[in-house]
């Protein structure tokens, strides 16, 4: 199993001229489309990697998503471009997951491997960076321990902010099934992260 080699970054913020770029891209401007995709490639790759747990497959899924996005952008109907391209990436990643399920000889990510290989984060304050990266490394490692259906649901919903309907559409599942997977996944993650509770207290600002 291959791992991402690069360091992770914080969440990609929208481009200042994003709406204009999207309009140009929708009219067939390949330069504008390239700018958009280049800007969001880390977001797409990160999502694919968290769903697939494999660097090469994640890169394949991200590239598939870019092709789908290029073919579909003429019909783009507004909203956040990040959300739109992440939905496409989720679909592309889930297609790969289904292909892997149809080929049982293919190995899925090994949950016992990779905590130390998970990417670091970057932050201006080195001390905060150290603590935050540790929390995120543990979180990513815990996500990989989850059963696949729970992992996919939690990643799409809680990491990438999709609502239940969007997760259901991306995973071709019933709404009730998706909710159940998310709830079970959260409790499973909470159990896995109990020993790192102090990291949460120190690093996470609670948004009630």
């Amino acid at each position, binding site marked *: 199993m291959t791992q991402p080699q690069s360091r992770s970054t914080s969440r990609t913020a929208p481009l200042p001229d994003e709406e204009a770029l999207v309009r140009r891209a929708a009219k067939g401007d390949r330069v504008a489309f390239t700018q958009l995709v280049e800007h969001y490639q*880390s977001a797409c790759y*990160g999502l694919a990697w968290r769903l697939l747990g494999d660097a090469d497959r994640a890169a394949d899924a991200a590239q598939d998503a870019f092709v789908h996005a290029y073919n579909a952008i003429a019909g783009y109907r507004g909203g956040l471009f990040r959300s739109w391209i992440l939905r496409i990436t989720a679909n592309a990643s889930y297609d790969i997951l289904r292909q892997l399920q149809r080929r049982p000889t293919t190995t899925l990510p090994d949950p016992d491997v990779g905590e130390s290989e998970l990417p670091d984060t970057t932050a201006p304050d080195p001390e905060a960076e150290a603590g935050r990266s540790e929390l*995120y490394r543990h979180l990513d490692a815990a996500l990989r321990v989850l059963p696949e259906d729970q992992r996919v649901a939690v990643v799409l919903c809680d990491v990438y902010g999709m609502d239940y309907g969007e997760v259901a559409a991306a995973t071709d599942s019933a709404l009730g099934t998706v909710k159940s997977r998310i709830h*079970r996944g959260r409790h499973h993650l909470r159990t896995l992260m109990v020993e790192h509770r102090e990291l949460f207290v120190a690093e996470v600002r609670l948004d009630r």
Partner: protein
Amino acid sequence: MTMTSTFHPDDDRLSALAGADRDATSDRALVEHVSACDRCGPIVDELRLLRSALAGLPDIPPSRPLQLLPPVAEPQTRRARGWLQRLVAPAIAAGAGLVLVGAVGTAGLFSQLSLFAAAGAAPPAELASGAGTDSGASAASYGPGLGPKNGSADPVARNSPEAGGQLDNNGTPAAQDLGEGQPWSLVLLGGFGFIGGGLLMRRATGDRAANDRDA
């Protein structure tokens, strides 16, 4: 915080509350229980912390350079043309072959009509009306020396005049022998059909290629 009840909400309800699901946050009994319960309150708090942490997980740069744009349309056009042209070319070639065979057969038929006219004999009705002979009565089979002679089991040879085929009372080949159908016309039509089909497919290929270029 005190335990308000020995009956606790199930994990899904606690997760729904932590996830700020509307049906959970509007469930007054659930909210009151969680706010007062020593067991459920901390669980919901931890789930909320967990969700906040998950929402802060950073993006990850790709492990290798990604191709940001699909290849330009030209290679796709070549691929699209490739499989269609594999169909178009044989259709046109087969059509051309059929047209050739049909034309030769028709020419043979007309030469027969000319022979009848030169000999002053009335051609059979089917020939006069443009009807062909059956497939066995090909131009070649009317030629000398082809096929077995009279009495052969081969209906082609048996029915050809040069081979001693059956003649009617006027010395002309029997009408039924010469024209049960219109095979040369059909061959000719089939050939044109093939060519027409091939050309249509070629045009469709051209349209698709143009669309690909536009895309």
